[in-house]
Each structure stands twice: as C-alpha cells, then as structure tokens.
C-alpha cells in the first residue's frame, strides 16, 4: 500500500489531499514519524525519522496522531481481498504481502489480470491505492511493486529479468543492506549486472557464503516460497514514554496494559508462550532485559502480568524511558498437551485458576471484538482517578 497510514488519514479527511501529511507522535512527546504522504516525502520526510526533524524539513507538515485500530481494520479488509484469489498469502506487515497465484489462472485469469483485479478491488472497497508487482519470484515481485510507486502496477516476465536487473544498484537485492552494499562496492560491484557477470565460484571465493546466494539473486533466481503463516517466534509490545517514568505504580499500570494487549493478540493468533521477557530502557538509553520461563505455556493477560511484574521488581528503580514485554517459546494452542497426574498440586500442570481465566478471557475477547479495545479492560489500567 502506498503511504498506508497517511493515505487512510487523507481518505478520511479529504481536506488533507495534496498536502504534506505525516502520521506520528508530536515532537514535544519525542514522537517519530510512522508514515509520510508522498507530498511530505518530497520534503525529505521519511518514516522512522524523529518528528522534530521532519518538522524542521517540512514546516507546513500536517501531523496526525496514529489510529492503529483503524489501520488494523483496513489491513484486515485488504488481506480479505487477497484471500479471494489464493490461500497462499504471506503478509510482511499490515500493508504488504506476497501472494502465490500459480494454479489459480483457470479460476481468475493470468497473474497479471489477478494483480489488476486486486488493485481495483482494494481501491473500490477501501478507497486506498495499492502498488502491485507481478513476477516469477518473491524478490522480483517486491522489486516490481516498488518500481512504479505510487499507484504502481508492474509486471516482470522471465525473459526481461536480466536486462531489468543489470543496471540496478546492488543494494536493491533483497537482503543486502547498507553495509553489505558498501562492501560489494569496494570490491568493484556497483550494479546487479556486475554481479551477474561473475561465476558462482568467483563470488563464493570473494564473498564467502554470501557469494552463492548473491549469485542466484543477481540472476533473478529466488527459491523462497510464499509461506502463508510463517511460524512466529515471539510476540510482544513496547512503548517509549512521553516522559521518563519513575513511579513504579504507573509503570505497573502500563505493564498490565501491555500484557493484556499481548495476550489478546496471542489468543487471536491461536498461540501461547512459555517465556516472558521484560525490556526496560533507562533515561541514559541503557537497555536491559529480564526473562522467566513458565512450566506451561499461556496466553492469559493476568498470568503474563504476574510474571512481568515480578521481573519489573528486578529492574533497578531508575526512571524508565521505555518499557516492553515479550512472550516467546510460542506454540499452537492445538499442540498436543501432555496430561498430568496430580493436577493443581503439580508445578507442570496448568493451574486451575488459569482454566477459569481462560473462559473469562474468551468472553472478554468477544466483547472486545464487537465493541473495540476500550470496551472492557482491567480497572487498574484506568490512568486517572476520575476515570475510575
């Protein structure tokens, strides 16, 4: 999707059309830019840039606070469009996905026409503009989708690949970052064509294990398949606070909110995890983590919070700039479960209290799905006395 968050905001407030718009936190609150409209990009505004810097570059920047609920909702609608054409959808983020449509031609027509139909359906159903690339491999499809952005549509056919890749800088190869690109340039490889001209052996000799892989990608060979649900290894949430927080009570309140949020997401994904990690960053940017592994996997907010809170006690009592919690050691809730002999008395068993909590969580999830995240939440996460 093109400038996804910003495009959604512009769609919802047409008076913003054509103006430099960015979604992000305010400079006073040490915010960063999450997305910038193409008008803003002409000023040099980029995502992940501090808002202060973005506003210096673009004094007329319209800054809009993020509405993640809304973006998630739109993302779901877009993903639903993809699902109409193939079950092989591999989301990369909220607004980006690989689709494998091989074998769907009889049903929906060629890959090109499927791409076109998806682009139109997204525009019609969400009012948002997508850029689409159609190509034989993942690397080339991603490249194609970036080539005509915004509002792009590009098809790369196999026979075009060598000519198309040759003039591109090596940094465009998927997985080659700034440092590797520099290294390649030092060795005399500026363009993908320079790399493609060498034999595999030569590249392997010069670049080591990287060589074989670069050799293939430079020729447009990319064996990676579209894998619909890449198994997640961890799931977490963290936040940089508007101001450093010293109050333990306040930190615990944030922590509880994070834990509830992470637990909700885990339940939605059908996952549960065993290891809970707390991350804390002090005012001087020193960052520490503390973790603990449970005897059983969980996806319950109170259970995660109980551990996270314990871990917070092990963090020195200085003001914190950032706090986060992560659950790893994930398993599918449908994973086979070893039953235990002694129930409650056994440390390995899932405590009975959790089995009750599980039923509560299922009910709360239903309310939340229907009425939104703010509908039900633990009373102790209410920040102000007046809210209570």
């Amino acid at each position: 999707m093109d400038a996804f968050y910003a495009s959604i905001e512009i769609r919802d407030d047409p008076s913003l059309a054509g103006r430099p718009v960015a979604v992000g936190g305010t400079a006073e609150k040490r915010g960063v830019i999450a997305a910038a409209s193409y008008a803003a990009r002409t000023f040099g505004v980029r995502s992940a840039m501090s808002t202060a810097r973005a506003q210096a570059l673009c004094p007329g920047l319209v800054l809009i606070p993020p509405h993640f609920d809304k973006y998630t909702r739109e993302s779901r609608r877009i993903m639903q469009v993809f699902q109409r054409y193939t079950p092989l959808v591999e989301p990369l983020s909220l607004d980006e996905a690989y689709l494998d449509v091989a074998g769907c031609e009889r049903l929906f027509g060629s890959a090109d026409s499927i791409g076109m139909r998806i682009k139109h359906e997204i525009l019609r159903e969400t009012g948002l503009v997508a850029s689409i690339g159609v190509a034989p491999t993942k690397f080339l499809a991603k490249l194609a989708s970036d080539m005509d952005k915004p509002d792009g549509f590009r098809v790369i056919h196999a026979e075009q690949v060598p000519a198309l890749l040759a003039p591109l800088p090596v940094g465009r190869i998927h997985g080659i970052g700034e440092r590797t690109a520099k290294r390649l340039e030092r060795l005399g490889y500026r363009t993908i064509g320079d790399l493609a001209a060498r034999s595999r052996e030569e590249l392997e000799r010069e670049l080591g294990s990287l060589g074989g892989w670069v050799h293939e990608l430079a020729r447009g060979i990319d064996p990676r398949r579209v894998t619909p649900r890449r198994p997640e290894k961890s799931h977490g949430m963290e936040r940089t606070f508007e101001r450093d927080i010293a109050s333990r009570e306040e930190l615990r309140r944030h922590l509880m909110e994070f834990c509830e949020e992470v637990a909700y997401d885990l339940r939605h994904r059908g996952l549960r995890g065993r290891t809970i990690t707390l991350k804390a960053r002090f005012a001087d940017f020193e960052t520490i983590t503390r973790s603990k592994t449970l005897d059983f996997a969980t996806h319950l907010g109170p259970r995660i919070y109980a551990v996270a809170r314990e871990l917070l006690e092990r963090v020195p009592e200085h003001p914190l700039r950032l706090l986060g919690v992560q659950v790893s050691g994930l398993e599918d809730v449908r994973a086979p479960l070893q039953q235990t002999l002694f129930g409650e008395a056994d440390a390995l068993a899932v405590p009975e209290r959790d089995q009750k909590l599980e039923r509560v969580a299922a009910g709360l999830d239903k309310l939340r799905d229907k009425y939104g995240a703010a509908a039900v939440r633990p009373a102790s996460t209410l920040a102000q006395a007046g809210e209570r």
Partner: protein
Amino acid sequence: MKVTCNRERLREALAVVNNVVPIKSPRPAVENLFFSATDGALELVGTDMEVSIRFRILGGSGVDIAETGTALVPARVASDFVRDLDCDVVVIEANGDRCSIRGGDDHCELPIIDPEEFPPIMRFESKGAFALQGGTFSKLVHRTIFAAAKEQGRYAMHGVLIELAEDAIKFVATDGRRLAITQSPLDTRSMPPRRAIVPTKGLSLFSRVVREPLANVEIQFTENQMALKARAVVLPDGEGGEPRVTEEIEAFARLIEGEFPKYTTVIPNSSENSVEAETDLLTRKLRLVANVTSAETRAVKLSFGKGELEIKARSPARGEASARLPVDFKGKPVDIAFNPDFVLDGLKNCEMTPVRLEFRDRQSPGKFKLGEDYHYVVMPITVET
C-alpha cells in the same frame, strides 16, 4: 598410618567410594577420602554431604595394617593412580602432610591435609534395622527410579517414596506425568509404619553397594536419613567353617523433606479397555514410529481395533509414520496417545510378555502391568479441538 593392600581390592573400593565424592565442593575437605586404618580393617569414607559411604576392607582379606592411623587423601588422584598401577600389592603410607602410594617400583607422593577437617560421618546402627535380600532391594530400585522427576523445581518428586506398611515394602516414583509403583513382601509386624522420600542419587548408590544379590542387606530409616549396610563374604574353602566377611559397606542418604503427591488416587482400579501385546514387538514398533516425532511433538497415537493395534505419529518437520501389530484386544475401537519415551521407559523394564495395558478413555491414564506387583501409570497426550 601404613597399610599394605591387594591392588584390585583397593581399586574397587576406591571406585565405589569415589562415586559420591564431588569434584568441586565449597568445602574442599570433602573432595578427599578419609582413610582410617584400625587393627582389624582399612576403612575408606567419602561424602558429598547428601550421601555418604563407608567402605571397610577387613583385615586378612588382602589387607595388612602395619601402622594404624588416619589420613585425608585427594580422592581423584589417589584412585586414578591406584587404577593405573600395574602390580598386585599397594603400600599406602601417610605421615604428617604427605601420603605416599607405592606399587612395585612405582610410587607417588600426595600432599594431604589434617584429617580433622573431614566432616563426621555416622555409623550404621543395627538396632531398629530390618533385613531385605540385596537382589530384591536392587530390583525395587530399578523398577521405579527411572520415573522420578529430573527437571528442576519439583523437589518432592526428585526421589523415590519408600513405604513400610501392611507387610510390604513399597516403592513409588513419579515425575507428575508417569508413575512407577512396585512392592515386595516384608514382615512389618514389629515396625512402625514409615514413609520416606529417598533421593535418586542415594538410591543408585545403595543399589551399587549391594554386593551379593542373594545375601541380605540391612536397612535403617532414621529421622532424616536412610542407611543401608551390605557385606561381601567368601565361603570357606573346605568342609564346615563359617563364611568369612571380607567387606562391609555402609551407605547413607539424607531424606527429601517434602510432600510426596497423593499417588493412590491417580492409579486407576478398573478400566473399560484392556489389551495385551507381545512386549518386544510393541517396543520395536513404538520405537520405529517414534522416529518421526520431534521434541515439540513427542506423541504417538495408539489405535486399537479388533485384534490389532495401529501406531501412528506425525510431526510437521519430520513427516509421518505408522505401524501395525497383532494384539489381544476385545471391545469397541478406541485410541489414546502417549509420549513414546514414557511408554518405552516402562517397556524397557517390563519383566513379562505379553505386557498388559488398561485404560478408560483417551483422557485417562494408561496403566501398564510390567511384572508381578509392578505397575506403571502414564498420562496420555490430548489434542485440544
């Protein structure tokens, strides 16, 4: 102290005692062996403060005490040196801060420390002890010890529960997912009922010191320890005469304080489904199918039909497998899934064929009969639907 000793006898004694000696201890004195030469015997004592052992080689059976006394000798070096000596007779001599070990033309000198630093180790008290055949004791240990908990944090399950009551000595071990239980007749009329959790480390030491399976060992439970005394004897050469005791070994283990889980309620009494299978065949087929399971999905499904068992397993990473074998099963087709490691652990100890399995349904424990007065209960693996 000066002692002359048959090398093989000494090597063996050192090997047994060394089993308990820690390589590194916060209390360095226990990294040593306590040698004590008295008029009648050479005694080797080792401890890691949890378990202790006292190994006496009696005079006349390859040991000759030239000069009585005590010495604290570095355990590893001394036993390794004696092991590597190539001779029949070893002379150990300790004086002040030196200990020499001599065998033939070879010898070593080891620095030693004051014997007073070694912690006091109790002696076996025969009063209140009871006797059990050594082989029976070892059998009870081997039948149960494998089922005890290995992972951290399950303190009371890190040992085997021993119960003396109702004319039996009963051993129970569990890790919360499977449980092994066995017993042997014992005249308990003159004893008060007793329950004790003995750490697995102590029990494997005890079964190692049982020298003669047919001879009795003496067992004693004190407030916080279990003690066992075993003897090695040689029979007289000619007619008549008494068997001569050559070795006496006393071993001690500190008991685990804690609440052993209430195991009686989890052992099923009656079950709808019962099946009998040839033990070796079942073992082979289980192992075969378990090859495709992985650490994350360690489960095999047993599907019972008329006269037949099908074993199936699958894991995303390794694929799937199935095997069939004839079994004696009557009743409606039913299935149940287990961790194959648990079942194989039990089958490895199975003393009879066919092995018998009983269970109510796929949610309920499976009960294997592995021998006379020997049962093994395994909780199934269930899949949430």
